């Protein structure tokens, strides 16, 4: 990736990654700093799919040890922008 991820782009990617996992949920009402695993009742397989989507959309590797950093939209955005900048 030649350009660092901007916050709005990262946010869009995060929402999109969530949307692919829970296409029926209304994500517009999901607060940015809410823990979406519980809010959206994601199970471990859902969460894995989410991580996979996120990783595929950004090219950023997300390890199991990073899982604690990707719990809310806001934390995901921070994680992605930080990692994106480091690339």
């Amino acid at each position, binding site marked *: *990736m*030649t*350009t660092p*991820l*901007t*916050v*709005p*782009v990262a946010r*869009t*990617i995060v*929402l*999109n*990654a969530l*949307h692919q996992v*829970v*296409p*029926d*949920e*209304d*994500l*517009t*009402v*999901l*607060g940015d700093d*809410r823990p979406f695993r*519980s*809010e*959206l*009742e994601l*199970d*471990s*397989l*859902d969460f*894995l*799919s989410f*991580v*996979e989507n996120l*990783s595929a*959309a*950004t*090219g950023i*590797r*997300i*390890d*199991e040890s990073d899982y604690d950093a990707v719990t809310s939209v806001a934390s995901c955005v921070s994680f992605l922008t930080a990692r994106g900048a480091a690339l």
Partner: protein
Amino acid sequence: MAEFTMPSLGADMDEGTLLEWLVAPGDAVHKGDVVAVVDTAKAAVEVETFADGVVEALLVQPGTTVPVGTPLASIGVGPVAPAAAAKPAKPAKPAKPAKSARPARPAKPRRAAEPVKPAARGATAQPPVHPPAPVVRRVARDLGVDLATLTGSGPGGEITRDDVVHAADQHPAPAARTTPAPPAPAPREGMRVSPYARRLATELGVDLAAVPLPADGVVRAADVRAAASGPAPTAAPLVAASAAPDAEDRRQRMRSAIATVMSHSKREIPHYYLTSTVNLGAALDWMHERNRDLPVTARLVPAALMLKATALAATEVPDVNGFWVDDRFQPATDVHVGMAISLRGGGLLAPAVHDTARLSLDAVMAAMRDLVVRARSGRLRDTELREPTLTVTNLGEQGVESVLGVIYPPQVALVGFGTVVERPWAIGGLLGVRPVTTLTLSADHRATDGFTGSRFLAAIDRHLQHPEAL
């Protein structure tokens, strides 16, 4: 004055169609507000303005297709009243970013722009209170409660699930809402429907137009059944459009199907329950170690280990693996572990991971992921739903410590895994902290006795202590 132009929403986009204006001349707009909806070749996308100001003129009518860069509206730049809501600062960006400045994967952000719609539109006007959580909205939808009429009791005035349930108790939803008329079977034009599927659709009250078209274009009985029992298969994009009556109806039908089976189970099956605490230290260490070098797609989750361990244990204790039919236990020749999958919008399915005991862990994992996707999109095969010889529920993933489940007849056992928690654990006279889970068994006392059940749980535990052999 600033120009609001047709944006480039991807390297391959050279023109777009204006679908809808979300502002009118005279409206004050702020950087980041969504002002229009634009249709690209792939999706409808909400478009933000990058300028503060007042909309002076709309230059393009909805329905018009124009090249990228064409001015769509003019915005008069000037002092505007500060926005009511504090918006997160957006990084400065040129009004029309050069193509090379876009992120590498334009297609995804474009589709994802959809969810921004109401939030961005409402953001300028609404107080900074959290909107109700999605689950709360769903409960409200199910119970027919208008969230706008509620005062939240949660932190910051947030509306909680209890608030909704309470409100529903006070003011029961009108009957018309809870008993929607059965939809008439009306196939789409050109849709090919087998005669039996057509008949079934009438009997089950399934609207054929809402049945997703299979790859070969023929709707069969299984597709109708899936539509009758599954969740809304054609994902209504984002906004809570799944409150449509047929989704409501489907939920009702699934609820009553579960009601029938579970009542039957509790009426007929003399359940007994066993509980055991299992140290998952070895299993999780092994799994994390293994996952570390793998791409996300190849990683395992603990549930895969639990499923496989249960399947292997069932081959050792075959009395829990099979069916109670005609007043006797009929053991199954193979182990097909059913995996309880909760559906969004309510309900539950437990399709089988075929021949679980003989699959590699990777194959179990792949099968689980495949089943979850298809269960939620209503694309399970009926054989997969009939096949399970034993069921595992992982309700612990939602945080409960143990689950004492109801057996799915004619099966004779159900294994539950509680949430994984760190607990003090004594090993060799020393105390350590280990991740543990509460393993439970609900079993049919007609088929087995507690002794057999405890052998089964012990076997699951033993297999989980040797994850490398799973």
